[in-house]
């Protein structure tokens, strides 16, 4: 076989094969670990936050190719965002940035959103003052 056939589009494959931001952050400011009851995936996102901005993000994922690609892409996307911006983050951004996911795999992007939100919540719990200082008056909700 000369051509290569892939289950996912080239962007997803690229993020699966060479995931960005893979790993843990030693002195993370917020860590979220979530699981998908639907398929058993587990995703963990660690954040480094400074001056209300996400300075660094890392992930670890137990899950399928699109779960790994989704967490890779999600960590890429949120770096540099403010907490408030990050709170508005949705899985659709991941899907779009990945150039689409198979319908049955959309939940992987949802898991990435949830892991990020969980990490932010963890940060907020640890640093309630930071949120007040940097939120644009919007309530912080999960």
């Amino acid at each position, binding site marked *: *076989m000369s051509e290569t056939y892939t*289950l996912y589009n080239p962007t997803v494959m690229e993020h*699966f*094969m060479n*995931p960005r931001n*893979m790993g*843990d952050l030693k002195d993370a400011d917020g860590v979220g*670990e*979530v*699981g*998908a*009851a*639907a*398929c*058993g*995936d*587990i*995703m*963990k996102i660690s954040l480094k936050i400074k001056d209300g901005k996400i300075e660094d993000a890392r992930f*670890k*994922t*137990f*899950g*399928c*190719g699109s*779960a*790994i690609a989704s967490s890779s892409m999600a960590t890429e996307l949120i770096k540099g965002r403010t907490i408030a911006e990050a709170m508005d983050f949705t899985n659709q951004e991941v899907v779009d940035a990945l150039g689409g996911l198979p319908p*049955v795999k959309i939940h992987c992007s949802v898991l990435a959103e949830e892991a990020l939100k969980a990490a932010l919540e963890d940060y907020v719990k640890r640093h309630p003052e930071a949120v007040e200082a940097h939120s644009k008056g919007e309530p912080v909700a999960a």
Partner: protein
Amino acid sequence: MRHVFLDHQSSTPVRPEVFDAMKPFFTEAFGNPSSLHQYGLRVRDALKQARQQMAALIKADSEEEIFFTSDGTESANLAIKGVAYANERKGKHLVVSATEHPSVMNSVEFLEKQGWTCTRVGVDREGIINLEELAAAITPQTVLVAVHHVNHDIGSIQPMREVGKICAEQGVPLYVDCEASAGWLPIDVKEFGAALVSFSPHRFYGPKGVGVLYRNKRARIVSMMHGGVQEGGRRAGTENVPAIVGGGLAAEISVTELPQRMAHTAQLQARLWAGLKAKVSYIKLNGPEPGPKRISTNLNLSTEFIEGEGQLLLCDLNGIAVASGSSCVSKSLKVSHVLSAIGLDHALAQGNIIMTLGMMNTEEDVDYTVETFAKIATKLRGMSPMWDEFERGLIDSVIAPTGRGKSFSQHAAEVSGKPAHA
């Protein structure tokens, strides 16, 4: 890059001589077997020969007991529903093993919606049917027992003789799905005491597009495909002549080659499992150990702390074609019901990979696979929060428990907020 096809369970290439035998039936001998002229009569003769070849593969008495369908799934549907509808007045109860293929399971579920009842007989941790439970499940209303010969996921070989004896004693016809064994293990319908047997040539170097149903003349069955009077009125629709001809030859070759096939794959199976066990930590073989209770082509593996699809994709990117019974890999997002039936821990079911060997595989293929798979496991564990948490003693291994930390399932339930399904 080396190409290693380790998914013979999904399909096999058509053998060149089988393809050669099929060729004339596309462009030249293209007649419809129902036609009464030269073009029809010629292919009718060819179908008869194929029926004889199929009968020989399973030691059936007569080619008149062989019916052609479109695939293994249709044969299973016909066996289950055809017998159920034919015996409706006798009773509306079926007995099946819990690890049958979805083509059997879902046919049964369809009947259940229409008022039939079904008892699913459990299997042990190796996937072998509980014979006492089977005997107890049969009632006077039971019109069919379905127990497959070999399981498609974990390769367990069922004790067919004992199953057949129980059915004979209770006077209930036995249907044996031989899709995962035909061409790779001896099959003898009389030794099995089988009233119905199904299989499909694309699993033993024959073409796709044809399934076989053996039916002992004493077993009552009605047609589920309605139309013309093809296949003695048992299956309407124009026969797929080239596939039937090719399938027949593939069956004939299988009879001759069987000892070779068993020896070759058994040797590779042992080497592959030994290699993986040595090179990959926290790996488990599901189903029986290689030997008399396991088909020589199949290895079903669970590698802990990593998930199946990632393993499969990385194998593929390294030229190794494998399958998986993990939920992430299936379109239905469900773990194989076979893995549930043998009580496999959720964590292990998620990390499932199925490797099925064939004649074209070599020792070099096996060694390459072991080496590559070990690297893949390391890479994915590097990405896995579970591996990290295991190393940190937060969760424990199922395969080799250390006594530290909580279970994966407990952890998964906690982080997902819902109990993990098995």
